[in-house]
């Protein structure tokens, strides 16, 4: 083990804490202990992440075989993802303290919650493909208990579905990894690719197949068609906070993996103009459109949000598939924005469930009377997701569209933005009705239930409201002041393209 | 071929008899007839052998008047073989007949198939 040991800390610290939480008896009995320790660890985690990001460097952890090493390293992309993960995780953690109070077996949730963040950190800091794959698999496995938490029949089924889609995707990707390992010196991430031309000679076709397999495989986590099926099943049954991180961050792990594969191992140049790129674009656009359509037709709130995630993450993938700088910037910025926004949305949905028990959109008429502040935050986030300026979504979509138009991918360069536009309309169609119905339930709305259960003005507790608020604010602020973020992303884009 | 067969008329007859005996042995279910078939078959073989030893115009190989020339007598070997063979056939016939007697006493039938079936049934009970 050699290198900067600090990189290990954001990984080890929460995992160890998670195991302690899972094993310790006192955490089962005393809720205060549990939440206190968890939040503290999350804060610590945030600090450690920042420290690690600052200190930079790399670390070789282990040699699996002669050629397979497990190594960590910090670069711009990992910085972005790490900070995003740590901060959002902290916020959701705070939210969970309140949210989970009415669930059983909280210690298990928090235990795995902590472990997952450690694994995610490992994923973010991975310095090579193998390490990435290791953490990717571990992430699947450790996040499984979050999905399973309810232990209802549906939850178990959904958990297994989640597992199988993820594992199937991972194995598809593994095919590519097997291949890439043979044609590269090492699988260490290097901007622009690490493939060895000599070894590659005569295997170009295979390279493309592998690349496509990996994109589709890792795309499973990112909810890309055709392996998107787990998302709408897993989200509704998981606790809202779990759904939030699942769709906000864990899907992003898939994105990260694709970025790493395409831009850091294979190299974007090798894919440009090939059938892989075309296929990929086609898949992302399909997903974008299909996700939005399904979301539009979905009555269950969390499921609707899940479909929305399917659609939105594919915006990111679409941006990546364009293989040009502008789109890349758009994609990465959409990673950040979508993460923030989707957390806000999911947390809201969770808050609604906790407070009122409503899950379907039509039940939520008059929500504005119950929790106006929350709904306001929701509205901001929704607008941001639709891409109404000056909220953040607009910025990323702008970059995406302009990148697409200048990408030179023929028909895609205008078909893409068109699909994005249609999808944005659909987004408005499926997100805004809640706001409208919430605030303006119409004349025929009597609010009998609200009165009966005395729900009026019953905002969720501050533990829940605060994170939602912070996230909604972030969604707005990122849109207003995107400068520093965009410039950082542009530097990344320049290095990889 | 026909001409040659007519020259070898004894053998031809013997062979046809052999075939008849063989057929009886195979086809008839009655044990006594089977034994007859067997005897016909054996006898046909002896006829065949004996005719092989015969040489036209020569005498029985019993030395008469001290004449010991080859040209005087027929070949004695097949005669000897037939003698031996007859004894063998007598023995086997006796054996088969005694078996038949025993089986008839037991099953009151000479039909071999029936005997086999009855024997099987007897064992099962």
């Amino acid at each position, binding site marked *: 083990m050699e290198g900067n040991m600090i990189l290990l800390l954001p990984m080890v610290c929460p995992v160890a804490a998670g195991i302690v939480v899972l094993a310790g008896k006192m955490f089962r009995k005393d809720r205060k202990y549990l939440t206190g320790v968890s939040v503290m660890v999350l804060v610590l985690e945030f600090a450690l992440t920042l420290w690690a990001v600052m200190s930079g460097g790399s670390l070789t952890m282990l040699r699996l075989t002669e050629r397979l090493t497990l190594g960590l390293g910090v670069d711009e992309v990992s910085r972005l993802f790490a900070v995003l993960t740590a901060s959002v995780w902290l916020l959701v953690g705070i939210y969970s303290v309140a949210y989970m109070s009415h669930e059983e077996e909280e210690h298990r949730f928090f235990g795995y919650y902590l472990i997952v963040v450690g694994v995610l950190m490992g994923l973010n800091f991975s310095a090579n493909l193998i390490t990435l794959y290791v953490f990717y698999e571990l992430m699947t496995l450790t996040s499984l208990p979050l999905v399973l938490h309810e232990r209802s029949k549906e939850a178990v089924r959904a958990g297994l579905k989640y597992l199988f889609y993820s594992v199937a995707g991972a194995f598809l990707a593994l095919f590519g990894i097997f291949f890439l390992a043979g044609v590269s010196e090492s699988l260490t991430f290097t901007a622009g690719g690490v493939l060895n031309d000599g070894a590659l000679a005569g295997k170009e076709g295979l390279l493309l197949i592998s690349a496509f397999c990996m994109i589709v495989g890792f795309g499973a986590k990112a909810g890309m068609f055709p392996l998107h099926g787990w998302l709408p099943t897993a989200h509704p049954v998981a606790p809202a906070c779990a759904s939030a991180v699942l769709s906000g961050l864990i899907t992003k792990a898939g994105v990260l993996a694709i970025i790493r594969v395409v831009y850091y191992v294979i190299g974007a140049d090798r894919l440009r103009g090939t059938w892989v790129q075309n296929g990929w674009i086609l898949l992302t656009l399909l997903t974008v459109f299909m996700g939005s359509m399904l979301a539009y037709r979905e009555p269950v709130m969390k499921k609707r949000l899940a479909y929305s995630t399917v659609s939105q993450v594919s915006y990111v993938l679409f941006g990546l598939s364009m293989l040009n700088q502008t789109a890349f910037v758009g994609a990465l910025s959409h990673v950040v924005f979508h993460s923030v926004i989707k957390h806000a949305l999911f947390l809201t949905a969770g808050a609604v469930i906790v407070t009122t028990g409503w899950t379907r959109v039509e039940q939520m008429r008059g929500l504005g009377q119950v929790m106006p502040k929350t709904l306001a935050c929701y509205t901001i986030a929704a607008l941001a997701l639709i891409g109404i300026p000056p909220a953040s979504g607009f910025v990323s979509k702008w970059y995406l569209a302009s990148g697409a138009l200048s990408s030179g991918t023929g028909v895609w360069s205008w078909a893409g933005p068109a699909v994005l536009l249609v999808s944005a309309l659909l987004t408005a169609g499926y997100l805004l009705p809640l706001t409208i119905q919430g605030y303006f339930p119409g004349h025929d709305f009597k609010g009998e239930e609200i009165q009966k259960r005395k729900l009026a003005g019953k905002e969720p507790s501050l533990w829940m409201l605060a994170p939602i608020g912070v996230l909604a604010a972030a969604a707005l602020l990122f849109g207003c002041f995107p400068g520093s973020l965009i410039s950082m992303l542009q530097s990344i884009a320049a290095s990889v393209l | *071929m026909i001409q*040659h*067969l007519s*020259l*070898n008329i*004894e*053998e*031809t007859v013997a*062979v*046809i008899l*052999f*075939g008849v005996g*063989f*057929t009886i042995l*195979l*086809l008839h279910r009655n044990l006594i*007839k089977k034994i007859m078939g067997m005897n016909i078959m054996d006898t046909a073989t002896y006829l065949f052998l004996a*005719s*092989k*030893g*015969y*040489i*036209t115009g*020569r005498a029985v*190989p*019993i*030395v008469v008047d001290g004449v*010991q*020339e*080859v040209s005087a*007598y027929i*070949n*004695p*070997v*097949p005669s*000897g073989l037939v*003698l*031996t063979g*007859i*004894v*063998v056939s*007598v*023995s*086997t016939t*006796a*054996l088969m*007949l*005694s*078996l038949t*007697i*025993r089986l008839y*006493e037991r*099953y*009151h*039938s000479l039909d071999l198939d*029936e005997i086999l*079936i*009855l024997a099987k*049934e*007897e064992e099962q009970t």
Partner: protein
Amino acid sequence: MSRRRDNYETSRWLRFKKWVDGETDPLSSGMDAIPVVTEGQMRERRKNLALRKAYDEELTRLSAEHADKTEIMKARGIRNFQKFYKVMSVILCLAIISVLLWTIAALPVTGGADNPANNEVAARYIEKGLQETGAVNIVTGMILDYRAFDTFGESCVLFIASCCVLVLLRLDADSKNDNIKKMIAESDDRHFEPKDDIILQKCACVLVPVIMIFGIYIVLNGHLSPGGGFSGGAVLGSGLILYLNAYGYKKMSRLFTEKVYRRTTLCALTFYCLAKSYSFFTGANHLESGIPTGTPGAILSSGLILPLNICVGLVVACTMYAFYTLFRKGGM
């Protein structure tokens, strides 16, 4: 299937067929003695009848239309197999016959003096047989001296066949097995025995000595004239059988019992065995056997051939008689 006539049972064809199949018994019109059936026999028959009836019923049941389908198939299969078997046997036999005929067509012509079979072997038997064996009858000389081992084997065949018949048919009076005792009682066939048939007895009285003497003559002159141990023995045996038929077991048992039979056979075969062993041994080791061949043509000549003929004659006579008695009643 031919059209069935009303009077099919009496048709000529049926009668012909019955005759061919041997189903009609010309003696069926009451010429044979009415057997006295013992109770045990009846029981046995009833049992067998029941068995056979069951067997027939089984068959009819199987052929019945509403019987179990698989069983019908099975029965049909058996019937088909039987047909197939018959056809195949006929074909096989025809094939054998034609192959053998084909062979015969390629064999040397019968009676030809130059046939390959008439080679130096036969020549030596004829030319030197008299000197080497002392037997005037060349065939006897050959089978009892040149090829004596075969002949010894032949005696053994007879011996072992009689042993087998003994195994099968001998019913021991001192047997402990009840079943066998019953069988002895049942097979007591004196009911059929002509009791003091005067014509038979007188004929036998005349014939038996002649037959016996003739048999002895054939045996003793085996090396001089046609004949020998086997033919003589057979004649002797038939004499004994005639005597038995005429005078019955009681008188016969004064002359000839199982003990006598055994001892005779044993002595004869032992002598045969020892004598031939001596001869083989000396021959193989190129020793002089020291047995004189004597004057050709004399009764006491040709070395061991005469005693051997006597032995064979005894064995054959005993065996023939034993076969007869065993077949008849399972004991002497």
